[in-house]
């Protein structure tokens, strides 16, 4: 990506990245009962990193991601598959939803559940797979 990005995009990229990531986490947690969920949230987060990539360069985007996108796919997939197993241990069918409501200070009642674990898994897989493709294409572009 040797295209000179505009200074406005550069400046905005710094602020937009954290904002969009927070928005994606908001979407992730909002899911299940209201519009939102792991897939949409993952796309928003991946789009945020892709925007960052356009405004900076590939190294900066990789740095902003901290981990290799392939690790995200693997970890997310493991998480998603494992979320089906607690139900089986209790003698129910795989992927039966289990809910553990917890009272937390400040936040009130928070419902931890297996669908939440599944959604986090999906979130990571989507970020990982979209960015694997985008980064690979961007690197191929840079080489040529």
């Amino acid at each position, binding site marked *: 990506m040797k295209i000179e990005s505009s200074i406005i995009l550069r400046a905005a990229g710094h602020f937009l990245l954290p904002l969009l990531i927070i928005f994606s986490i908001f979407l992730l947690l909002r899911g299940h009962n209201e519009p939102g969920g792991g897939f949409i949230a993952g796309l928003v987060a991946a789009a945020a990193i892709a925007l960052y990539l356009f405004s900076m360069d590939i190294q900066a985007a990789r740095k902003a991601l901290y981990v290799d996108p*392939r690790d995200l796919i693997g970890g997310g*997939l*493991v998480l*998603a*598959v*494992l979320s089906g197993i607690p139900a*089986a241990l209790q003698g*129910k*069918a*795989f992927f039966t939803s289990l809910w553990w409501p917890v009272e937390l200070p400040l936040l009130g009642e928070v419902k931890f559940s297996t669908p939440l674990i599944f959604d986090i898994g999906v979130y990571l897989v989507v970020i990982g797979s979209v960015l694997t493709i985008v980064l690979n294409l961007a690197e191929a572009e840079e080489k040529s």
Partner: protein
Amino acid sequence: MSVSLALPVLIPLLAGALSLAFWRSHLAQRWIGVIGTGALLWSSIVLLKVTWQDGIQVMHMGSWAAPFGIVLVSDLLGAIMVLLTGITGFATALYSLVSIPREHEKFGYYPLLHLLLAGVAGAFLTGDIFNLYVWFEVMLVASFALIILGGERAQMEGAIKYVTLNLFSSALFLSAIGLLYGVTGTLNMADVAQKLSQVPEAEQGLVSVISILFLVAFAIKAAAFPLFFWLPASYHTPQVAVSAIFAGLLTKVGVYVLFRFYTMIFADDTELTHTILLWMGMLTMLTGVLGAAAQYEFRRILSFHIISQIGYMILGLAIFTPLAIVGGVFYIMHHIIVKANLFLVSGLVYRLRGTYELKELGGLYRSHPWLGLWFLIPALSLAGLPPLSGFFAKFVIIRAGVEAGEWLAVAVALIVGLLTLYSMIKIWNEVFWKAAPEGCEQREAPPYTHQGNSLVMYYLPIIGLALMTVLIGVAAQPIYELAEAAAEQLLNPVGYIEAVLGAKP
């Protein structure tokens, strides 16, 4: 409800996820590859045993009741197919240890292999048509990536044809699902089977259209007559372990769905669909075997034979008597093992001589007499010589054809059997028997750095599968009974419907 039902899907998914998580370590991936496919094989044996003893198994995923939730169902046909998936998967994983280059492992060979197996097992076990579509896509995405691992020119060209035609078939499948949902308001297979018989007269035409749409979509996946061109263009291009698993399993998923749909679901209008299937089966057999006769590349010959063998299975379905269905099921069992094995043998020949071209091969019987034997067992079984598995498979189908009075089909089946024998003898002559051409011993393919010179891991799966072929031939009676019970369940879907939806008062 039994846990064993979900395991054949969950194990490869988990193994795939784990080997993706450990993508940096080759060693971990290889261990996960062998242990994961071994566990899949074990779970599929357990599943078949449970299904045989206790009847059809059903699991409502997430405890959502059918027909609203997704169900996993294993009747005997599904369980048999999963067992075959386990066998092929395990054999391929062992073979991959020595035949897959480091580069490919780095680009995710093992995760993709597991994902492919998960997709195949899921397609065999699901009881929901849309879920079937999802498993098909899982399988396809994994196979797309596997077919281009390595990135050679031939692979790219083959992959473009493979991807395009399979995506087109998926789009047809999806359109048919949409129309079916519009007519019946449900996509649970058992529920659809029930509701289709209550469709009013005015909408019968639409049902026929849907049924033909499904037929075309799955015929593309199964590589049946006018729709097979993607197969010989692509199957000989990837690594041989990939070819073997594609040849063994992928087209058979299409055949399996044809068996499932046109016995249980669209069984009312057999006049139309089964006549098409009959012609399709005969022409598939003929074009496949004639295509193979013109080829002089080891894997291309085998690829064309996949097509011709698919024709036999479709013929079994098309004749549509109980005996013919038994023959079809038996044929699938025999074919998956034999075909995967032949591809594995071709890979070993390549390892020894560095080419797949028959013209440049020769003299292998002199240097490796035992390899000749391990080639002859699956090759003669494919051609249908007694007492190997292929003889009984062909015998049952031809006998069913005679009983049903389909003389043309019987004649075609016999001629194709003869031509198959011709093809196999051609390979035998060119590769093993004739004197080695000048300098061909020196062309041994260099072993990949990590595998050393041992050929044990090449031979192990080949011998295992060959012995299985002999075993199916020798113990044909119990296996025939298994196929008979599976066909019985397909032709009387009441048991399946009651198992999924609960008995009607």
